[in-house]
């Protein structure tokens, strides 16, 4: 049984894989006829060992992903009072066409317009325009990220300030 996994488990990113390590401060024991014995080749003391048990759905990754980039309806419009039900459209299914919607909000969709203008300028060799549109692209990405954050700016008033 795993316990305090936030304290006893560690990982290391190695290429496309994750290496899992378990911290142990004891000895590996086995049950034999009701007695716990330490096997000669088992671990003991403080060290990192490979995972020592099977855990179904034990490892959970969380991250950004390439999820349903194109969908059948506008993701920014409510369906009545509910969020729209999105169905992915792909080239493999034969459903991807010019009427497919990009699964982003309108601001990020406008950023994509800038990105395409930048790539189009790049293919023409117009590097000045490319740089301009890429700057616009990143500005919109930044604005979109800051739209989700709220903060208050507080500045102290000095005792002799004119009020």
């Amino acid at each position: 049984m795993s316990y305090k996994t936030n304290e006893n488990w560690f990982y290391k990113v190695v290429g496309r894989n994750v290496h899992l390590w378990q911290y142990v401060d004891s000895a590996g024991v086995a049950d034999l006829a009701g007695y716990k014995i330490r096997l000669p080749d088992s671990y003991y003391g403080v060290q990192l060992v490979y995972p020592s048990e099977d855990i179904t759905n034990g490892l959970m990754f969380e991250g950004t992903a390439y999820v349903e980039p194109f969908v059948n309806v506008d993701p920014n419009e409510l369906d009545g009072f509910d969020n729209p039900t999105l169905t992915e459209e792909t080239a493999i299914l034969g459903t991807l066409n010019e009427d497919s919607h990009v699964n982003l909000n309108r601001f990020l969709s406008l950023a994509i317009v800038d990105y395409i203008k930048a790539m189009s300028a790049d293919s023409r060799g117009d590097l000045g325009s490319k740089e301009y549109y890429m700057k616009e692209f990143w500005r919109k990405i930044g604005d979109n990220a800051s739209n989700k954050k709220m903060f208050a700016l507080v500045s102290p008033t000095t005792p002799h300030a004119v009020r």
Partner: protein
Amino acid sequence: MTIQEIMERSGVRETNLAIAWIRDAIHLIQSNGDDQVATWKTDITDTVREYPFPANLIKLKSLSVLDTSDDKYKRIRRLTHQPTVSEDTDPD
């Protein structure tokens, strides 16, 4: 916004090229931000240390291991260096 509207706004006429650039842009957005966050779960196997990243993962945010004593996923920490392996039962 539809692909057609994006093409009209950007003045691109080739649909496949526009779709390819849209995919690239989405990848850039997901690499630098977190517009869509997902989770993936996989089994941990006794004595196996190596687990591949999910195929469609772009940027890793956290890694958690199920604490079976209270049935909760708990975020684990990253090692800053590769441990010295003195005994290896699963060399790859």
